[in-house]
């Protein structure tokens, strides 16, 4: 961004050109009642050194050097150095896609690569250029299912990330889309598909399931899809831990996949920005929200990229558009693109295997609450102890513990959700287990 300094004389010149006495006069048309009649509560200017020092001190308050076993939707994975090297290039970092998007062949090329790799990873036919995050992607997938089926009801598993469920509620509330929850098996921690079968009726548009689910348990997506299809509903599968796609079989029967790519070299950053994704079957593409980049040839016959199927979008179809999203998370999705390129198919599989192995090592030292198969997250019983107390004791040893589940599931108030990744060291896992 350009820095444009201005001197007092330049200020006076500009005010004179506007025909006003002071900068305050520029706001004279605003009603008195809404005007702030005092200077902003900001300190006077400080030196550059003081500013740098201030932020360094703030930075020192971060939990640098702590081991983390906190997952629950945001994961501590290694970010390859190459990611920032690529995304901090000016061509990507400072550019905004022009409204004639095809001018930016470089940007479109990276988005096309992104879409292609997401399809390879998920086994789906088509993926969009990315969504804001996993939760909004899941809600958009629900709306998409409603358009495709001309129905409105949603059957949502209680094992879907509770905050994703809240976003779903927000989206569905004023769309005439009633939400029905179905429960989970208290033994396995997987969604109770018998409960789903009982509650599902022919007015429902979609069954919404997350796998691995919020408890880390891998769901039987194909069976849920079969139940959904029997009632002419679609199966929407959400995910929060993208690394699991490196080892788990893509759910062949799911109709729409909607998830979060934070695990792919997107730093946690206190909750965002992240990048979501929707991937689906070719036959559903006209109801898919979001930008889509396609491959074409230019007038000279060279390979080129363009925005395609844009008539789904708001700038053309107005109130009948598939969504009010008319952008994507280009820079953040690029982080995921570089991540996928760095690891490759084999590397991602090895990464997933490490996650699996470490989480199972840690779980072996604790008392897992559920018996269902899990990837890198699992629920443990605290054996009568207060989970917050355990976390406080862990913090003293520079270990960030898991998520106490009582906040979202009152019946699990004596349980904690733990996560181990490739970053988890054996000594930290052993130390954590010793505190329990």
């Amino acid at each position: 961004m350009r820095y444009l300094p201005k001197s007092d004389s330049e200020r006076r010149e500009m005010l004179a050109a506007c025909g006003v006495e002071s900068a305050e006069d520029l706001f004279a048309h605003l009603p008195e009642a809404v005007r702030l009649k005092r200077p902003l509560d900001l300190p006077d200017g400080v030196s550059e050194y003081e500013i740098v020092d201030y932020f360094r001190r703030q930075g020192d308050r971060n939990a640098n050097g702590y081991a983390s076993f906190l997952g629950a939707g945001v994961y501590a994975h290694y970010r390859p150095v190459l990611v920032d090297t690529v995304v901090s290039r000016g061509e990507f970092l400072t550019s905004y896609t022009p409204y004639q998007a095809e001018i930016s062949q470089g940007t479109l090329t990276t988005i096309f690569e992104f879409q292609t790799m997401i399809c390879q990873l998920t086994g789906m036919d088509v993926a969009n250029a990315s969504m804001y995050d996993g939760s909004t992607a899941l809600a958009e997938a629900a709306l998409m299912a409603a358009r495709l089926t001309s129905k409105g009801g949603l059957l949502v598993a209680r094992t879907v990330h509770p905050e994703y469920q809240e976003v779903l509620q927000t989206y569905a509330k004023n769309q005439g889309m009633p939400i029905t929850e179905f429960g989970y098996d208290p033994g396995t921690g997987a969604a109770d598909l018998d409960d789903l079968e009982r509650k599902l009726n022919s007015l429902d548009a979609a069954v919404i399931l997350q796998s691995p689910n919020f408890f880390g348990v891998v769901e039987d997506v194909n069976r849920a899809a079969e139940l959904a299809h029997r009632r002419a509903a679609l199966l929407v599968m959400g995910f929060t831990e993208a690394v699991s796609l490196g080892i788990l079989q893509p759910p062949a029967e799911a109709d729409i996949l909607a998830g979060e790519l934070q695990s792919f070299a997107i730093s946690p950053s206190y909750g965002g920005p992240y990048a979501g994704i929707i991937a689906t079957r070719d036959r559903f593409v006209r109801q898919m929200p979001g930008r889509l980049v396609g491959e074409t040839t230019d007038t000279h016959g060279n390979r080129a990229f363009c925005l395609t199927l844009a008539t789904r979008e708001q700038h053309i179809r107005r109130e009948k558009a598939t969504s009010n999203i008319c952008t994507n998370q280009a820079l953040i999705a690029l982080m995921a693109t570089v991540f996928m390129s760095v690891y490759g198919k084999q590397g991602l599989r090895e990464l997933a295997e490490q996650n699996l192995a470490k989480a199972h090592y840690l779980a072996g030292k604790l008392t897992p609450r559920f018996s269902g198969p899990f990837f890198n997250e699992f629920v443990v019983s605290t054996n009568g102890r207060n989970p917050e107390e355990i976390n406080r004791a862990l913090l003293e040893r520079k270990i960030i513990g898991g998520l106490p589940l009582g906040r979202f599931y009152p019946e699990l108030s004596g349980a904690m959700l733990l996560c181990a990744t490739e970053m988890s060291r054996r000594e930290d896992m052993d130390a954590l287990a010793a505190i329990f």
Partner: protein
Amino acid sequence: MYPENYRYTKEHEWVLVEGDAGTVGITDHAQHELGDIVYVDFKYGRDTLKAGQQVEQGKSIGSVESVKAVSDIYSPVSGEIVGINQSLADTPEKLNADPHGEAWLFKIRLSNPGEIASLLSAADYEAYIGAEK
């Protein structure tokens, strides 16, 4: 250019009426304004338009999409849908090549032939699009 025996709407549809049977399409002017047509979507309300559906004059029965534009199609008359040109699903470009002939959109049994009086003649339509330009 614009057949004398067709009737036209200001939304750029044409209808050929024979007895109580109507054939509906979009005009050459409409295809020209849209550019390369890539998709035709038949929808009445939230549902896919099917034969047997009763439609009202002036109601949207779907849309035509070109590469960078989309336009609703309105039924020029009321009646019962008796046929839809399914071949447009695979060859929407026919709408650019032969909008007044092979690329008709749907056939309808008119429930109120009196509505025809409210439509434009070929000469009126040509004058209308001339003024629109």
